[in-house]
């Protein structure tokens, strides 16, 4: 039987990701750009993955879109919510997973999984606290790169309390702590716990069952992961493919649907 290739495209609010999968098992290509929906990101990420793999759109049995910008991916045959795609991608990488936490650019999801399928979920309300954007804002005030936050937090000797209810007020608190001469690492530690506290509130609504996996770009921040482990009281697994989990899930769903289509 000929190989079946599928493409998953995840267009978020702050990043565009794509994954090509062979026979629903092997990742043969992936690409990522740090700009999301409404920018040139979606078009460029698709072009890039085809260039990198030397493949074409015509070779794809099915293309699945997901993410905040899923409705505007012209190349996609179908789309699914990022909730299902993160659940499926996480299950593929860690079959024992029952809880997935995804902190995205503008939303937070806690997904409960049973036998690989999403059975329930909770998302943040209309507020940026606890999201990736919250960390972006704090990094800017602290004059550090977002990618440095994890390592800086590791140097903290005491945690500073930062509000988890509002990004704007939390920003003022950070400025005030800086003015008082508090160490940046301690403030960052507080910022991470602020995010973790917010996410934990959502997670408790769904119910936390091991294994817990964190997906999305923020999972690269070791400080947030360890703060989350502390707040949740559970081990939080991550993956080097963390930013691609949604796109991977989309490619897996595309494979599943391509098989159904082939049978018909």
């Amino acid at each position, binding site marked *: 039987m000929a190989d079946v290739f599928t493409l998953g495209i995840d267009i978020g609010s702050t990043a565009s990701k794509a994954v090509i999968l062979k026979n629903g098992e092997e990742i043969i290509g992936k690409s990522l750009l740090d700009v999301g929906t409404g920018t040139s990101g979606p078009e460029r990420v698709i072009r890039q993955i085809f260039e990198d793999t030397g493949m074409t759109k015509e070779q794809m049995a099915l293309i699945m879109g997901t993410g905040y910008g899923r409705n505007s991916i012209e190349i996609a045959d179908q789309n*699914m*919510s990022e909730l*299902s795609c993160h659940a499926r991608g996480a299950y593929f990488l860690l079959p024992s997973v029952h809880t997935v936490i995804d902190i995205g650019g503008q939303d937070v999801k806690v997904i409960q999984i049973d036998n690989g399928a999403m059975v329930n979920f909770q998302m943040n309300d209309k507020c940026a606290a606890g999201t990736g954007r919250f960390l972006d804002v704090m990094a800017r005030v602290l004059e550090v790169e977002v990618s440095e936050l994890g390592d800086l937090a590791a140097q903290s000797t005491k945690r500073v309390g930062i509000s988890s209810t509002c990004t704007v007020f939390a920003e003022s608190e950070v400025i005030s702590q800086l003015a008082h001469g508090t160490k940046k690492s301690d403030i960052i530690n507080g910022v991470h716990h602020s995010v973790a506290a917010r996410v934990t509130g959502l997670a408790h609504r769904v119910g936390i069952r091991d294994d817990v996996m964190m997906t999305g770009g923020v999972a690269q921040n070791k400080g947030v992961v360890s703060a989350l482990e502390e707040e949740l009281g559970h081990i939080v697994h991550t993956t080097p493919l963390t930013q691609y989990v949604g796109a991977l899930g989309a490619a897996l769903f595309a494979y599943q649907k391509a098989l159904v289509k082939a049978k018909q």
Partner: protein
Amino acid sequence: MAENEKAKVKKGPSPGVLALRKVVDDVYEEARQAKKRGEPVGWSSSKFPCELAAAFGLHVVYPENQAAGIAANRNGEMLCQAAEDLGYDNDICGYARISLAYSAGYRVGRKYDHETGEFIINPASGKPLKDENGQVVLDENGNPKKDPKTQQPFEELVNINDIEAMPEGEEKERALNALKPIRQNLMPAPDFVLCCNNICNCMTKWYENIARMHNIPLVMIDIPYNNDVDVDDSKVKYVRAQFDAAIHQLEKISGRKFDEKKFEEACANANRTAKAWLKVCDYLQYKPSPMSGFDLFNHMADVVTARAKVETAEAFELLEKDLEENIKNGTSTLPFEEKKRVMFEGIPCWPKLPALFKPLKENGINVTAVVYAPAFGFVFDGLDEMAKAYYKAPNSVCIEQGVAWREGICRDNKVDGVLVHYNRSCKPWSGYMAEMQRRFTRDLGVPCAGFDGDQADPRNFNAAQYETRVQGLMEAMEAKDLAKEA
């Protein structure tokens, strides 16, 4: 029609729906006429015992229904903002803000040219113009042309007190004529207010403010939150005593004695309406359903504003017949194929109805359960039983009772999932939803999704966030089916 067979879409309002619309129109019109005749007109909260006012033949209108209508007509933000400018916080219920702004004289006016009196048309308004073949007519830029007949004037906030203070003449007439001609924008000012806080506690201060603004009497019935499933005798006694005091106040307001015969008639009508309402709600148990569950939200206007009128009972009975016909003919008012059924928890986001409906339609999701069915389907006999009945409003019952109501309709109406509106306007309703959601999942084994929104203030709703949640809910319901099959 056999279960699971596809229903054909029934277009246009049925005789029952038309009758129900007329009932609400008449409530407003009769109140306007009464005001013109110099009779006192009251403003009432939705679950104040309307039977009491009916016993005195008093005309009453309903600010909650009015606010929902103003919000659905896309003027919620304008009036909420006007209330905020008066000093009311934007955390206060959107209905209350709209009502308080209206109470202070604010109205929606159509902009007009003060020289000619002609309305200034908003070029973005109106439906696409179609030619004789039904094709959309394009302008020179290739964009659809608007049908001039359907274009609307720009709107602005005006104050009726300023208009009424104008000298008599053409300019005053123009200003009055420019008031947006929807019934909610032309509701007569109150001469008394009837407040029952069984629906929420914000109501008390809201109505106190109206009474103070207009310097008019407030008839208050206090129904505390019931932390028990039953309504015991002491609670009945507490409310019954307030009914007696309210009757005394209404005698003074109307200048008439309490008419026992009229009261009994109003109670009989209210009971008949409640029974017909419940029967209508029960039609959502059919699979597929002969109606869109969103229809119930529209029919709520009748239950709120006119449940003690015989015309309301008759209109609901007529609607029952329409639905029976739909079952026989395999038709439904749902404009798409019903693939999944959900309970919609909470009040709709009235200013965003198309956005609310869009992903439901795209995913084939029909709302077949709403808590209003049991909450307004109560029947009673006499003043003591009436006290007991009014103790059971959605936000005054304990969580066990609230869960039992909802899980009962979810089971009867065969829902596959639950969609919860975390309504920024309604803290009592939204506050306990997280726990309720947990219980629905545990007891019913169905997925639940929550979204943020508001019943009247469009600033609190985000369509993209909502769409993701609805799509996620649909996928979770489908995943459950696949797991079952496997």
